């Protein structure tokens, strides 16, 4: 115990010593940097790295899991509260819809040395964001439990159901499966994954008309309900953090969770036996499909439009420094699947790499997708509670979406 602590201290010391000598080289003279980001370890590392290069610029950061709620109002103000927002496939859309972020082409040309072309998010030929990590939701399993009961690592959700039933029947665990089914955004995300796994399309091609009330939608809901039946009965209140706690308490043997959370599951905290038996594998497929029932996500930075050019420049230089930082990628290889040059994938990246190999689809970057996601999050709850039929739930989702889309001018 003491030895590991000493090791930690030594590593941190080394990090500080060498870290500063490498990072102090950005020479930013002025400007003010203020970043809004989600809150998980990889993003903290990324922002810290950017901070190391702030020079004499003012540097502030807000890490919040409520970032989605703050972003649009904060960036709408002029001047905007934040000079940069760390966004993802879904959260860049409202910023684009409201015209709140600026193209980065000039800045990339001037200061973007080391950023790879594959990191650039281009929309209509303009660079709108620079991605630095990839994320997805995939399966985690308890090797010891599966081995003991002679269960093979599940590759499909049908196998996940069968395996969970077997574990329950063995009496080892009452609720062997977990996924973030909290009513609202999380639950909707699970639907999106499962529906894409079934090969479903959310909208009629080329329009904003919904098209989820079909056989694939019904199959998706039925699978979600089966999985919910194998989860803790409080599943509608469980977000990613809650199921992580369930896992660490040893109550769960199979789980669908974000890749970016693997770091906290596999660290030294908690029961060493559970940590040692926690294994990662790719996302599952469903209903005989080839593509996984998961979506690919990127996290990248965007710059606020309503902020002075000087601030934008300072912010870009600091963030670009992190987005092309081989040292950060090497030091924090465990925290994320970095899209940055020099990244060597470790055992914690298996989920994302498998997902890419299996040709998982990225989360749909459509202007009206947020409304669909919102409608899903509240309207499918009653089906899971057994209060209405799958068809009725899907009909409700479409109707709720249509009213919102009409109000927003999409229909």
């Amino acid at each position, binding site marked *: 115990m003491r030895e590991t602590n000493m090791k930690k201290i030594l590593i941190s010391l080394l990090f500080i010593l060498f870290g500063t000598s490498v990072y102090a080289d950005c020479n930013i003279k002025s400007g003010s940097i203020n970043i809004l980001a989600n809150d998980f370890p990889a993003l903290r590392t990324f922002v810290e790295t950017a901070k190391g290069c702030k020079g004499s610029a003012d540097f502030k950061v807000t890490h919040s899991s409520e970032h989605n709620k703050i972003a649009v109002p904060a960036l709408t103000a002029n001047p905007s509260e934040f000079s940069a927002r760390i966004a993802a496939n879904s959260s860049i859309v409202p910023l684009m819809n409201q*015209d709140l972020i600026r193209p980065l082409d000039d800045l990339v040309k001037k200061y973007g040395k080391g950023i790879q072309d594959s*990191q650039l998010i281009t929309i209509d030929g303009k660079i709108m964001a620079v991605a630095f990590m990839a994320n997805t939701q995939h399966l985690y399993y308890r090797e010891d439990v599966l081995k003991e009961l002679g269960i093979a690592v599940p590759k499909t959700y049908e196998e996940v159901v069968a395996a969970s039933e077997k574990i329950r029947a063995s009496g080892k665990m009452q609720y062997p499966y977990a996924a973030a089914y909290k009513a*609202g955004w999380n639950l909707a995300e699970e639907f999106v994954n499962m529906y894409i796994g079934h090969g479903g399309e959310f909208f009629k091609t080329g329009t904003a008309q919904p098209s989820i009330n079909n056989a694939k939608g019904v199959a998706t809901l039925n699978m979600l309900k089966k999985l919910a039946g194998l989860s803790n*009965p409080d599943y509608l*209140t469980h977000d990613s953090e809650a199921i992580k706690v369930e896992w660490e308490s040893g109550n769960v043997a199979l789980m669908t969770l974000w890749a970016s959370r693997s770091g906290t599951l596999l660290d030294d905290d908690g029961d060493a036996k559970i940590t040692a038996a926690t294994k990662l594998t790719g996302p599952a497929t469903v209903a005989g499909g080839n593509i996984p029932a998961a979506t690919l996500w990127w996290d990248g930075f965007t710059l606020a439009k309503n902020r002075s050019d000087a601030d934008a420049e300072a912010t870009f230089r600091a963030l670009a420094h992190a987005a092309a930082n081989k040292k950060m990628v090497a030091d924090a290889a465990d925290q994320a699947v970095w899209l940055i040059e020099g990244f060597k994938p470790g055992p914690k990246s298996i989920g994302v790499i498998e997902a890419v190999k299996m040709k998982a689809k990225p989360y749909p970057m459509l202007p009206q997708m947020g409304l669909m996601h919102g409608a899903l999050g509240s309207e499918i709850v009653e089906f899971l509670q057994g209060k209405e039929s799958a068809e009725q739930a899907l009909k409700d989702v479409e109707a*709720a979406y249509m009213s919102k889309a009409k*109000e927003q001018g999409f229909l």
Partner: protein
Amino acid sequence: MGIKSPLITLMPNKTFFWFFLPTGLAMILFIGLPIISTGIQSFYAQHDQVVKEVKKCDPFGCTVSIVVDQEKTSKIREEKPLGKFNGFGTYVDRNHLAIEEIGKFWNETNSFGEFVDQVTNLPFYKALIFTLTYCLFVTPNVLLLGFIIALSLNAVTRRIRGPLIFGTILPMIVTPLVGSLVLFWMIDAEGIIGANLQMLMDDPYLSLKSSKTLTWITIIIYGIWHHSPFAFVVFYAALQTVPQEPVEAAIIDGASRWQRVRHIVLPHIYPVVTFVALISLMDNFRVFEPIIGFSAEGSAQSLSWLIYDNLVNEEVILFGSAAATSMMTIIGIAILLAPVLIRTWKEFRTAR
């Protein structure tokens, strides 16, 4: 009988005007104008979105997809920043009053039960039913419990009254969100209440959070717990003004404790009861924090929660929807309070 408001009966109108002016101005500025602006907002919807097909590239490849055409959109937005006039469009759409849908349900359903099922499946009515149920159960219980606590505390010896009063008003001091979170963890399947309930009922699958009815009951009990201290404090203060002579006379006449409460104390503090009922009704109609604290969005939605949902839960903010629900909440409170207000007004007139 009853406590007459000395301000209104004694103060000349002119003095009253100057006395009220600063408050009145602040009310117009911070309450009146925002309500008007919300009202205006509720009649507008977003402009039709002009979208175009573009090529999008990300680390996972390129696709042809659509985006909002900013050049064209910004031009329309500059001309009419409020949006497209929608009249009562937002009010009657499916996510609010759903006039059209209700008409359809009426024609299509075979029985009244089925019709009610369909209507209560609509988001606005679902929220309205929870909100009203909450008001209906919490308000009377708060009044009753607050009154009983006030009476009992009034009867204990003065020496221990101070600490007792402090302990009693604690639920009101605790921030609602914190209070509900504490209870939320206690009723967890592995929390102290949840686990004991499972043992008591001999049902390992019992979960207070997964059942809609149990969630409602939990939130209502929480509401009573949180609001009772307010009623208690006001009733306790009012009890101090009860004249002792009639009480003593009643004791000599052999009136029981209940008779004294029923015929002397209650009539005396009646105006205060009305006041507490009004405030509680208003507060309860805006129930919101416990839903967030208990993560009960799945089973219980209130009108205030709908507004919150429109403003923050979507990645796209629905100002029109939120404004329309806000206006209807205000109207709802007005309707709820109307009987009490009318009664107070009538009594005020006869008292004069």
